[in-house]
């Protein structure tokens, strides 16, 4: 807290901090690639999860609407991209057209989910949104007959990668001595989108709109009595959250080149919600921390548990996949006991007080 306070007082220190953070973010993929290219890929997935968590944070963290089917919007964004940039329909639109369309379609689905659930809260809302998420997945699984829209469980393959100013993000390119693999290029793309989404979130939170959401989260009746149109504000929260999910979905399609309904199961919704809750609902930095931890820790386990066991016991006793769920559950229990508001709980935003001291 003090460090942040003094940073605010010294603009020079602030800039040094920004340059350091920017430098390490730019260098990160090359450092990771030197350890193993898989780690860059894992980082990219982590950024996708950050995007999803930030989107869900608007709905759950700001407006206080428990959504258990959030991954549906990710799916919608992903399928919009896949259908408009793959041989499935023979359509190959550029990414800068499809990503906004994906966001808009996801936004529409957000309103579609929001409208009938306006009067629901808490557990009831959770059940309806959970159902919504499943409905979307089941539709994707079955919309292959009589008209083949989604290609069913087989999914959509050979989705176009992103092309940007003549650079194909799907292939390797070299700039002088540096080799930019497809994964590394996507890292930079995702990084840019992530920074944009963080900026949008920060500004929304610290605005009239963000305060209205928080008012609804705290006390919906009082919010209405203060003149907040809770219907519109809740729909707006669903719509904004959904469009962030849609953008993340589109990028997922482009990076993976292949999607199927299996990527959008309930576990994914639960995972994203866990990231939001673990990090600290309503706190943007907390949510990012939650997403990073829950994306990386399982991967670190995957790469360390088996070798460790081999060294200790000479054979692998516990499968890392099993251990992962065990630790995940344990982490959640411990969290709820000791830090129920998350790792970085939403803090009071201190403002300069103009009050004269007596």
């Amino acid at each position: 807290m003090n460090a942040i306070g003094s940073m605010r007082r010294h603009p020079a220190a602030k800039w040094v901090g920004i340059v350091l953070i920017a430098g390490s973010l730019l260098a990160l993929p090359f450092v990771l690639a030197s350890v193993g290219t898989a780690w860059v890929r894992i980082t990219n997935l982590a950024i996708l999860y950050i995007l999803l968590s930030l989107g869900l944070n608007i709905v759950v963290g700001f407006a206080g609407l428990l959504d258990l089917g959030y991954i549906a919007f990710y799916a919608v964004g992903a399928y919009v991209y896949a259908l408009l940039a793959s041989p499935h329909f023979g359509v190959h639109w550029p990414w800068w057209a499809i990503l906004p369309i994906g966001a808009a379609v996801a936004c529409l689905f957000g309103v579609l989910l929001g409208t009938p659930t306006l009067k629901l809260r808490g557990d009831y809302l959770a059940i309806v949104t959970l159902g919504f998420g499943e409905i979307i997945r089941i539709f994707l699984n079955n919309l292959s007959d009589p008209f083949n829209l989604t290609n069913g469980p087989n999914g959509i393959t050979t989705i176009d990668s992103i092309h940007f100013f003549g650079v194909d993000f799907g292939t390797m390119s070299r700039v002088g001595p540096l080799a930019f693999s497809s994964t590394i290029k996507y890292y930079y793309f995702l990084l840019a989108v992530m920074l944009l989404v963080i900026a949008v979130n920060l500004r929304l939170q610290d605005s009239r709109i963000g305060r209205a959401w928080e008012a609804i989260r705290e006390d919906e009746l009082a919010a209405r009595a203060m003149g907040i149109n809770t219907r519109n504000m809740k729909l707006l929260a669903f719509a904004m959250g959904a469009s962030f999910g849609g953008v993340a979905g589109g990028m997922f399609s482009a990076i993976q080149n292949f999607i199927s309904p299996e990527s959008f199961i309930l576990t994914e919704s639960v995972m994203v919600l866990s990231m939001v809750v673990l990090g600290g609902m309503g706190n943007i930095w907390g949510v990012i921390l939650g997403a990073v931890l829950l994306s990386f820790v399982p991967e670190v386990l995957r790469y360390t548990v088996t070798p460790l066991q081999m060294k200790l016991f000479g054979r692998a006793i516990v499968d890392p996949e099993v251990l992962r769920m065990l630790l995940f559950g344990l982490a959640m229990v411990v969290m709820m006991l000791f830090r129920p508001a998350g790792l970085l709980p939403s803090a009071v935003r201190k403002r300069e007080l103009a009050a004269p001291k007596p």
Partner: protein
Amino acid sequence: MTEARPVAAAAAVLEVQAITKRFGGLTALSEVSFSIGEGDIYGLIGPNGAGKTTLFNVLTGIYRQDEGTIRFRGEMLRNATPDRIARLGIARTFQNIRLFANLSALENVMIGRHVRTRATVVGAVLRTPATRAEEQAIERRAHELLDYVGIAARGNVLAKHLAYGDQRRLEIARALATDPKLLALDEPAAGMNATEKVELRKLLERIRADGITILLIEHDVKLVMGLCDRVLVLDYGRRIAEGLPKAIQKDPAVIEAYLGTPRATTDPHPDPLPGEREK
């Protein structure tokens, strides 16, 4: 506001005509009528369960009346939602304080400005000069209002961490932030000590002097009788008396409602008789 205001001649801000509200078989309000003159402090008293808060909830759009009409500044409030009523200029506080508990005092008041500001998502994300100016104005006004109710130094404290009396003040500040023409206060003095009540009384008089009409539900009879221009007495959802505080204190129907023998057996804790504490 002039010093000696004509009591009934002032233009009516709020006219309530024969409001009836039923909950299943229970008639919570039965053909209640009254009107509040511009710049008045209008008291609403009655024993527990008389329908005072129900009347508040009907006025602020939380409940919808079954019969009767409400006219606010000449405009009929038909099927108006709470947010629309706040926009029209009625702000309220709650009997059991309903602040935004996990937000700071200042933010609570800033939220009150929502209805008088217009920044959209686009404006908020792009931080246009208009939005920035509006944000500054919101924050400045919120500071002013905290100062106005006397809790300027507590702006950065979470609402839930404020002392009880300060929470009541904050609710008033938040309601004032919506620029109301009519401020409806549901037992603002509940739980306050004598000093706090004196302060509250000063605050309410100041609000009235600033041109805001006040509708006040209050149990502290001394406060009501000393402060209000007119008083409406409800009992079992019916209007049993209305008029100047002096006349209300002597009204036999009011005395019976507060002391009445048939109710003494059913209601072991009647509210104090008006005038009782004045001696």
